[in-house]
């Protein structure tokens, strides 16, 4: 049951990903992107990362994608129906790079049996934490203890990004 669900969501994710790349309009790409994000969020749930799945939906699909949408609307790009892909000849190096990348990754998977052992000690630990603290608590535990400095720094980064975005996007500086 779980496997079938995974494959369904994986198929949706891959299809939507191609949609993102190939969609004619920016808005189309964006909507495909939302679909991809949702499918990936579903795989998160299947991988027992409930909190991240929620965040994915709320922050990514909800906030960031809406921001993109705003920008597209603001710049009035919705009427551009000409496909902006590069010329077929210029795509050959892109295909070559991507093909080589895929080949390398496939080689890595074949050479190592990553993920062959289904449930490891770590996985069981996560499950225990989920039972004990709940989905939020399980990730909050390390986040606010081991990674507290990183967390604070990330907060500063966000602040800087806000200021930067404001400064850049202001009409007159």
């Amino acid at each position, binding site marked *: 049951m779980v496997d079938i669900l995974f494959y369904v969501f994986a198929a949706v994710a891959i299809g939507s990903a191609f949609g993102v790349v190939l969609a004619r309009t920016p808005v189309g790409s964006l909507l495909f992107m939302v679909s991809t994000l949702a499918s990936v969020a579903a795989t998160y749930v299947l991988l027992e990362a409930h909190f991240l799945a929620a965040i994915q939906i709320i922050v990514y699909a909800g906030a960031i994608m809406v921001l993109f949408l705003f920008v597209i609307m603001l710049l009035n790009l919705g009427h551009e129906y000409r496909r902006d892909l*590069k010329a077929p000849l*210029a795509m050959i*190096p*892109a295909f070559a*790079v*991507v093909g*080589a*990348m895929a080949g*390398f990754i496939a*080689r*890595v998977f074949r*050479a190592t049996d990553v993920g062959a052992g289904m449930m490891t000690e770590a996985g069981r630990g996560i499950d225990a934490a989920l039972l004990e603290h709940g989905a939020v608590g399980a990730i909050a535990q390390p986040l606010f203890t081991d990674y507290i400095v990183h967390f604070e720094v990330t907060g500063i980064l966000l602040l800087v990004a806000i200021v930067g975005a404001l400064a850049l996007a202001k009409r007159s500086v």
Partner: protein
Amino acid sequence: MTIFSTLLTSVVQEGHGGGGGDFVPFLPGLVVLLPLLGFVINGFLALRHARRSADAVRAGGELDLGGPGERPATHTLPSLVGPGVMLLAFLVTLVNFVRMLGSELHEPMVVHYWTWIDTGAFHVSAALQLDQLSMVMMMVVTGVGFLIHVFSVGYMKDDPGYPRYFAYLNLFVFFMLVLVMGSSYPLMFVGWEGVGLCSYLLIGYWFSDREKADAGKKAFIVNRIGDFGFLVAMFFLFVTFGTLDFVPVFHDAPDALVYGGGLATAISLFFLLGATGKSAQIPLYVWLPDAMAGPTPVSALIHAATMVTAGVYMVARSSTLFALSPVGSATVAGIGVLTALFAATIALKQNDIKKVLAYSTVSQLGYMFLGVGVGAYAAGVFHLMTHAFFKALLFLGSGAVIHSMHHALHHTHNHADPQDMRNMGGLRKYMPITWTVMWLATLAIAGIWPFAGFFSKDEIIWQTAAFGGAEHAPFPGLYTAYWVIALAAAMLTAFYMTRLMVMTFHGSNRTGSAEEKHLHEAPAVMWVPLAVLAVLSTFGGWINVPEAIRESFLGGFGVLPMTEWLHHWLEPVTATAHHIQETNLGELSHYAPFGGGEVAWAVISTVMALVIVVAASRVLVRGEVKPAAEDAEPTGFGKVLYNKWYVDELYDRTVVQPLLRLSRFCWKWIDAFLIDGAVNAAGLVARGMGWAGSLFQTGNLNTYAFFFSLAALVILGVVVF
């Protein structure tokens, strides 16, 4: 005055208090420092003077030096400082000399000041060495130097560069004293190079004249060749002994070097190359006649009395090394005697009064080399000393003549050469004092008894014969030839010096009727030094008369106050060399190659010289000399001699021109083509690579992303494989 009396008391007390005790040097550093102080003061004055002149010229005028005949105000201080420091230095030297006389000094006294170079195994101290040899040199340098400084006050009176002149002259004396007092070869080399520098500066003193500036350059460049030899010899010495201080080197030399070995020969030959450059010997003598472009007192001080004798001093100082190499010594003597003859032949046909004296100097330096080459180091130094007296006198006398001629010609705006003897003649009438002292010097240099040159030159010629006839003499035939050549050159000396005197002072005046009236005797500031030098030239030879001559009628049968003092005085310095010589050569001969003893040959040579002087003066006075403007070019062999055997032309063809061509080749092809080409090619390659690289920089984001991915791919590839 109190200072002086205190000083005098201290001299007497120290000098005689010990009664043959230890030598206590009296402020030897002061001897060196005083001329340096003079240089600093005069140099400062010269700079100030130059700045004022430049300001005056910029303002459109010329610096006012006061009326004609008046001594300019800028000249007062240099006139006091220049000779003043020399007098003080001479007095300090005298104090030391008296103290050394009163003490028994067998080992050189080294006064250490500070460590100059201290790197790894190489140590050089700034230290002065006081021994009998350096003391003689110090006396000559400061004494004759002082007289020439005084003479310069009169001679250079009207020169606008007066303070600069005295600055250079003081600096020269400083370096010369470093040369003779330094306690190691590097320190000697410092003085050696320093006097070369001052020589260059003073030859080109009137540097606005292209020819004179070129003469300075020639002296400097020719000397470089000699310096190369000096340096290589020092390298050999350091490799062999591990030190370059005189005392340890000469102490170890007899053990470390094999008699007649290759190393000793190489060292002595390289030192000889250095000496030929500085002392104007074949093949590097060509710079000295050109060096006459400098002011005449400079020629007297640097190019006759002191600097050019540095080579002789160096050989005498290194006597131990040269004694160890019979080949080196024979080469020294051979070069010396050949130079003596060769330069004397050139002097026969020169018309420039200073050129005659220049070739005469080269010739006399050849005698000194002959002396030190045959192991008669004391005789070589003796001739150095007497030559300093009479040649300085001759040069200063010729300076007085030129001074007078210059004034006479200047009055009528005549552009004839004031140095050309064909324009002189009959000057005896106008310059009686100069005439007298110059005849004394001529008799001295011609080797006529009882003047100084007779004793010193005859000693050298005799020692050549004695050395050649020694029991185990290395090349007896060669030394006999040396002896004959030396005698012949002595005869030539007598002839060309008589010719100089006759052309200058006797016969009828050829200066011109208008100019004649303005000829005059030199002022007192110039003739007093001449008189002092004349006394020295006359009696200076009496301090080194061998016993045999002293007891004969040449020495008044022992009545005249003559001694063999100098020979004994220098014994501590040359003792090692003489010991080596005695061990290897055995007893020196008491007879000349063709029979006859010391006294006999002394009589023969002085009689021959006298006959030549008298005969030549008789014949030449009668001969008609035309003024330079009307005189015909010499022909035949005379032309060859007049043109100095075409040696300058030969050097030009064989050395200078090929060198120029090589330089041109290096410039045009190696530098401009190969090196510049390579550099430009490197630049072009870099530019081409930059252009190729710029092709990747399209400004397009996709392209950058592509290369970014490619790089990521490479990293991934490295991780995977």
